[in-house]
């Protein structure tokens, strides 16, 4: 009997059906979805769980829902988990937020999402929930209450919501939130640290000061904690199940279980295009708001100010000039209008420009430029 009891426990949390959304020919699959969920008076509640763990696919799917779904009469909770990656906000500066060197060393992906807010680190122990509603039903607090309520009801964890709309556990942050509002649809997504590797998290988000001045959205750093630290039996799958059930508990009978969705082109026409746009250098690094940083030259007070626009070095300002005109020209031709990517990294490393100009004077500049070029796409 005991065997059955254990399998009962396992099965209880995996009693979700595998369904395909079917072959969709249109961008508005509302009619297909409508036959599955039962309407109550307010809105249908759908729960989708992504089968993919690729950050770009999931971000693209999230964007697809935002652009193509009609949330007039329905709301969606979309849950997804990713392999290790770092996600920065729409108007953030990756050089300011992320340790690019550690990123490439640990082969962690970097991506930029469409909503605002700060930088987060994802891995398989982190659950992302996106609450999609129509613009007028957008309510961040309600969504966070749903999460807190579901976890509180099942595990003995006292989660609270901070004034900045983060979820706190014993005053440690366990969730970050961000949202995007359009004129018709809106979504609010948040992370939930269930069992994330804390050392990797700190490594990725621990940036050496480069002296970057920018108007990009800064991340507000807070000490974090895993839910598992306070409750060992919790896991991401369980949270998915509990949260999903809690989300739809108000909608009545005969709901068929959660839908597992595969982000693929045949299920979601147009998805590949969005996914590609999210994986390009142009989006991840090129969308950075303009920033500048000053780099001292030699021991004197002279500086070179590097202005970067759209991820490309726009200009070099030579302040307090003790740099010869020839040197300045060489630097300009080498660097101006170049994208800060691995190609430039190679060019700078192999270039003899710094050698001819006096290596010790320009060593700091060399170092900074090489650090900036550690972008990897």
């Amino acid at each position: 009997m005991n065997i059955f009891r254990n399998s009962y426990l396992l099965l209880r949390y995996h009693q979700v059906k595998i369904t395909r959304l079917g072959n969709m020919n249109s961008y508005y699959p509302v009619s297909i979805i409508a036959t599955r969920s039962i309407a109550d008076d307010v809105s249908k509640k759908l729960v989708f769980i992504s089968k993919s763990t690729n950050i770009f696919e999931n971000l693209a799917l999230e964007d697809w829902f935002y652009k193509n779904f009609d949330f007039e009469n329905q709301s969606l909770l979309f849950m997804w988990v990713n392999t290790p990656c770092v996600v920065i906000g729409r108007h953030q500066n990756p050089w300011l937020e992320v340790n690019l060197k550690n990123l490439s060393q640990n082969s962690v992906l970097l991506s930029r999402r469409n909503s605002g807010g700060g930088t987060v680190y994802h891995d398989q122990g982190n659950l992302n929930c996106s609450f999609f509603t129509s613009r007028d039903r957008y309510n961040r607090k309600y969504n966070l209450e749903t999460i807190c309520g579901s976890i509180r009801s099942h595990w003995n964890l006292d989660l609270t919501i901070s004034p900045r709309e983060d979820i706190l556990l014993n005053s440690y942050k366990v969730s970050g939130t961000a949202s995007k509002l359009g004129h018709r649809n809106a979504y609010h997504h948040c992370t939930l640290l269930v069992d994330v590797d804390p050392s990797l998290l700190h490594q990725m988000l621990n940036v050496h000061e480069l002296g970057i001045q920018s108007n990009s959205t800064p991340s507000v750093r807070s000490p974090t904690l895993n839910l598992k630290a306070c409750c060992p039996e919790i896991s991401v799958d369980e949270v998915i199940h509990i949260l999903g059930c809690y989300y739809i508990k108000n909608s009545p009978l005969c709901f068929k279980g959660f839908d597992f969705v595969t982000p693929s082109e045949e299920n979601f026409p147009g998805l590949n295009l969005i996914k590609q746009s999210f994986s390009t250098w142009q989006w991840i690094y090129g969308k950075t708001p303009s920033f500048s940083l000053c780099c001292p030259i030699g021991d004197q007070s002279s500086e070179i100010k590097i202005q970067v626009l759209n991820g490309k070095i726009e200009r070099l300002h030579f302040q307090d000039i003790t740099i010869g005109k020839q040197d300045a020209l060489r630097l300009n031709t080498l660097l101006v209008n170049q994208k800060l990517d691995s190609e430039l990294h190679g060019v700078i490393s192999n270039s003899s420009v710094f050698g001819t100009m006096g290596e010790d004077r320009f060593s700091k500049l060399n170092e900074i430029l090489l650090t900036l070029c550690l972008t990897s796409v």
Partner: protein
Amino acid sequence: MRRQGLVCHLGLQRHLFTVGRDWCRKFIRVNMASATRRIVCSFRQHKLFYLKSRLQYNAVALPFNLAGPYGYVEQIHPLATRFFHASKTFYGEKVPFKLSDIGEGITEVTVKEWYVKEGDKVAQFDPICEVQSDKASVTITSRYDGLISKLHYAVDEMAKVGTPLVDIEVSGSVSEAPVEELQEKDAIPLGEREESLELELPAEKVLTTPSVRKMASDLKINLRNVQGTGRDGRILKEDMLRHIESLSSSKSTPKPSQVPQQQAKAVERETTSQQPSPSTKTPQIIRPSVPVGVDRSEPIKGFKKAMAKSMTASLRIPHFGYCDEIDMTSMAALRHSLKENPMVKERGIKLSFMPFFIKAASMALHHFPVLNSSVDEACENITYKASHNIGFAMDTSLGLIVPNVKNVQSLSVMDVAIELARLQELGNKGSLGATDLTGGTFTLSNIGSIGGTYAKPVIMSPEVAIGAIGRVQVLPRFNSKGEVVRASIMQVSWSADHRVIDGASMARFSNLWKVYLENPSTMILDLK
């Protein structure tokens, strides 16, 4: 810079213009922004330039922002004066588009990205800019069609809610929106949900449609005297007709009112207007004042709607039926004896037949796992479910619901009975949870508790089989000795999905179930 030729369109013709050096330089800078080389753009704002073409056409290059998205070079008649009207409002009225309330008590946002620039043409609902407030990134869309004439904020500046964000030159006027064209679509641009387009009309003007105006002028009625019941006090056709009627009734001359179309109110008025005028010639039909039954219609909501939807889904499954008769004499005797048993009494559970049916079904399902399976909608995969979650139909005041008992394979008859009692109690209160209502793999419907013998139950998708149990009747049957004895007979009707289950499996399952129930001691043999 040397002289360059510019190609422009003049109406449908292309002409080559030579322009001076100065103009040329500016042209190139401006023209890089436009996608086509087809149109000559202006030089400076609000000035007109007179170009002479090789073909001696007199033409005017209109300033960029006055001429539309790509400036048009238009041929002018020498006497045409309108092109020389260089005022800013040539294209349309300049409307400041204010940053509307984003919600959440936010008063200031940072402008993060502009999607348009000055001089761009925008359509309604085109994205204008992206603003960010704390963690919310909001896309502001345009409210009007028109041309962007001014951006009030640069990137990374803080914009206050309620202050103008951009100035848009709207083509046509905004202040008098034609009544018929007002559309209240759900995708109303940000913030303007409550208020419609503000109609700042002069005090003398009355809101109404042209057809009503015509009617009023024909009948020489002053619109100011008519009471409008439409939005913002608009005078609708019905109001007009009502006014006419009231006028006619006050004049006490029976005036046939026009029959308006389509409105329910109009229909009523029609019937009232068609009543015969008081005249002694036609005999009056005496209508008795007995209330007559009326049709009542209500929307299908809640449980009924759920049932309608699930039944529609279920009937896509090709059903086949299989019916049988079960001799419940021994089962009835067993139940009767168990009721008196002290163990049962002490547990305080009312033992009906249902726990036995459910447990017997689960035991039979061990031998026929295909009946405890599930197929997906395209019928491509069959999943043999490991747990026997047997649902039973419950009739509540709200409608039919089917909660299920989970994992019957690991429960005893008593456990099933306890679980049943719990679910029934919750069901009567209407507080069954989603977990109780979902995840069922097999269903039994005891319609016999209400009545009936044979039935044709409908399979609940995504299950593949269902059984309907009829009423227990006492009927004469022949026993093994050939004598007529009284037997408690119960009918059962199974329905199964013929795509995955064949008749033989169903029949064998039913036989096994029948064996368990006709001879309850066989259940002990297969006890696990």
